[in-house]
C-alpha cells in the first residue's frame, strides 16, 4: 500500500517532467509553424521569399500556420501576457 503510494508519487514527478518537456516542444513547434508561414508570405514582410507561385500553391493548405502567424503578430506587443501564459499565471 505504502509502496504503491510512493510509486504513484514518483510517477507523477515523471509525468510532470514529461509534460514540461513536451510543452517546450509544443512552443518550438508553434514558432516553427509561425516561421514557415512567415517565410511563405515573406514578400509581404520584406523577407527573402520563395517564388510567388510556390506560395500560392501552398496557400490553400496553410490554414493552421497562418492562424498562428496572425495570432503571434497580434500579440507581438504584449509579451507580458505571452510570458504569463507560458508560466500559467
Amino acid at each position, binding site marked *: 500500500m505504502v509502496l504503491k503510494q510512493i510509486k504513484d508519487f514518483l510517477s507523477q514527478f515523471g509525468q510532470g517532467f514529461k509534460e514540461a518537456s513536451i510543452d517546450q516542444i509544443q512552443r518550438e513547434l508553434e514558432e516553427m509553424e509561425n516561421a514557415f508561414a512567415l517565410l511563405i508570405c515573406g514578400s509581404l514582410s520584406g523577407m527573402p521569399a*520563395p517564388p510567388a*507561385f*510556390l506560395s500560392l500553391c*501552398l496557400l490553400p*493548405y496553410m490554414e493552421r500556420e497562418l492562424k498562428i502567424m496572425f495570432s503571434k503578430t497580434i500579440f507581438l506587443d504584449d509579451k507580458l501576457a505571452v510570458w504569463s501564459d507560458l508560466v500559467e499565471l
Partner: protein
Amino acid sequence: MNKIFFFLGKGGVGKTTLSASLAYYLREKNKTVYWASIDPAHNIYDLLSLPASPKVQKIEAGLWVEEIDVDRYLRRFLEHIQEKAQKVYQYLQILNLDKMFKVIKYTPAMEEYACLYALKEVFKKHEDKDYLIIDTPPTGLMLRIFSLPFVTELWLKELRHWREEILKRRQIVAHIKHVDFGPGAQLEFSKDKVFNELNAQQKDMQYLKDVFTNPKKTFLILVINPDKLSLLEGKRIVETLNKFGIPIKIVLLNKTGHSMELKELNFFNDLPQKKIPLFEGPFPKQVLLKIASLWVEDAYL
C-alpha cells in the same frame, strides 16, 4: 524519346524563320513535328500568312502549330488555386479573393512560371510527336524561365526539410498530449497536404531540369546577327545557361553578308557555327527548305 529544339536569341534575329525552316525540313524527312511559340509577341502565323488561332492547328500532315497563350495558362493556374483556397478560407469575409487574384496576375515571376507551366504541359501532351520546336520569347524572359526550376528547387529543398521538422514535432506532441491541431492539420507525412504539394512541385521541377539539361533530348540553338548588340546578348545567353549546365548545341549566324570583323564574334569560336545569308521575305515552303539546307545536318536530328 522525342527531341526538343529551342531557338534563342535577341528579338528580330530570325528565330521564327529558322525554326520554320527546321519544321519543314523535318516534315520532308517524314517526321511528325509540333512547332510552337511561347513569345507573347507571336509571329508564326504571320510568317505562314495564315489567320491566327489560339488552338493547336494542323497546318499539313504531320505538322502541328501553336502560338501558346501564356495568359490562358496563368488564368487556369490562378483559378485552380482560387477554387481550392476559397474552400478553406471561406470564413474569411475580408479576404476578397476575386480582387486579390486579379492583382496576383501581375506579381513578378508569375509570367515566367506560367510559361514554364505551359512548357511542361506541352512537353507531356506532345510526347507522341518525333520533334518539338519551340520559338522562345525575348532573352530576359527566356533565361528566367530556364533558371526557374533550378532556383525553385533550392527553395523546395529548404521548405521540405522545414516541413519535415514541423511534422516530427507534431507527432511527438500529439503522441504524448493528444492535442487537436485543428482542421486540416495532419501528423502523417503522406497525409500532410503542404508536404505533398512540396513533393509534387519538386517532381515537376526535377522533370523540367532533366529536360533542359539532357543533351540527348534537348537542343538549344542560338541565333545571332552580325551586329554588336545581338552578339553581346548571345554571349549573355551562353554564359547564363552555362551556369545551369544547359549547353548550346549550335550557333546560327543569321543575316550574314555585312561586315564580319566584329571582335564580339570571337566569343562564339569554340561553339559549332553555321552562317546563313540574309533572305528577304516572304517565306514560302521552298525558301524555308532552302534555308534549312544551309544549316540543318542529320547529325543534329
